[in-house]
């Protein structure tokens, strides 16, 4: 079955004023949708048709650049829409403990994550991931690469992600990426992030 553009669990204006409805709509119906179509085009009629997106990306070193770019774009946006939402919950329990162990405090984690997002030069993503030894770390990836790809320097299970391609914020924030990153903290669905931690 071909990859499908997922529906969002909230309306395009649900993240206002932090992320505007116009940005959400274009991001979902144009950018994400184009990655989905191009990914389908890249696997169609090949041995990769029918494989899960995770299986494709974990073995991306053996795949075409079209699968790396568009498969990454498909997966990353799927993930991003899920950890966004009208703000819900706060890190607690084992998850909060893991954050404190890795970064010292929740606030120190936010500083490190924001720094990764601010300093990623060009297009890319910032991530909070759970590594194979169970510890948490912050990393960033260029373009549509991500930490489940075997080509990434730092790999692990994604818990939280932030899109810092200019298309993610330009209509509202233009060159002010740090303001977009500040605003992001108001629209994180921590219940979902903690769920990623428990399952990861």
């Amino acid at each position, binding site marked *: 079955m071909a990859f499908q553009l997922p529906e969002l669990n909230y309306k395009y204006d649900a993240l206002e004023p932090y992320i505007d409805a116009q940005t959400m709509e274009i991001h979902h119906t144009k950018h994400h949708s184009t990655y989905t179509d191009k990914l389908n085009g890249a696997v169609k009629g090949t041995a990769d048709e029918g494989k899960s997106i995770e299986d494709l990306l974990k073995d991306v070193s053996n795949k075409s650049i079209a699968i790396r770019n568009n498969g990454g774009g498909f997966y990353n946006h799927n993930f991003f829409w899920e950890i966004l939402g009208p703000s819900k919950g706060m890190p607690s329990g084992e998850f909060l403990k893991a954050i404190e162990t890795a970064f010292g405090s929740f606030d120190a984690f936010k500083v490190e994550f924001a720094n990764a997002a601010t300093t990623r030069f*060009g*297009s890319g993503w910032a991530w909070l991931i759970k590594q194979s030894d169970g510890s948490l770390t912050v990393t960033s990836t260029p373009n549509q690469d991500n930490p489940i790809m075997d080509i990434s320097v730092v790999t692990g299970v994604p818990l939280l992600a932030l899109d810092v391609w200019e298309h993610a914020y330009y209509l509202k924030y233009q060159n002010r990426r740090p303001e977009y990153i500040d605003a992001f903290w108001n629209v994180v669905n921590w219940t979902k992030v903690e769920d990623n931690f428990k399952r990861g």
Partner: protein
Amino acid sequence: MKFELPQLPYAADALEPYISKKTIEYHYGKHHQTYINKLNDLLPGSDFEKCDLDTIVKKGHNGIFNNGAQVWNHTFYFSSLSPNGGGKPKGKIAQLIEDNFGTFEKFQEIFTKAATTLFGSGWVWLVQKDDGSLEVLKASNADNPLRNGHKPLLTIDVWEHAYYLDYQNRRPDYIDGFWKLINWDVVESRL
């Protein structure tokens, strides 16, 4: 040495309707200016403190390279454009394009395809190589052909900030507009 934002060779609204005044105000006034400010912040105490911009672009690394090359690239890009631009090149540059690509239309097709398909942020360049031949090159992020010893003749900025306010995800429409703004006299003068 302190670098300064060069004057734009036209008014901020001069490239309308292809590139809006608002885009120029951010692109030139904010992005270009910020690269200059960051470069000036990074230079004191570095190996490049007394270097000219070409040397920084050719030999720099990390933040000094990224910001220095972005200063160079934007100055070059903005000066490649003109409200009286567009059309077909004449003279020596026209001849070289025909010699290397067959026809101007074929060159246009190759350059447009490179600009459309460059993934992520970056630049597409028309360069002249050591042997005199022309080539179209894709370059990610801040990359610049001087690092490979080529002579840059023309560039298009395909970072999303170059077109997002005017065209959003429709990069091909921005590229169409770019062709109507190229100052071919300036391109020829770079040979």
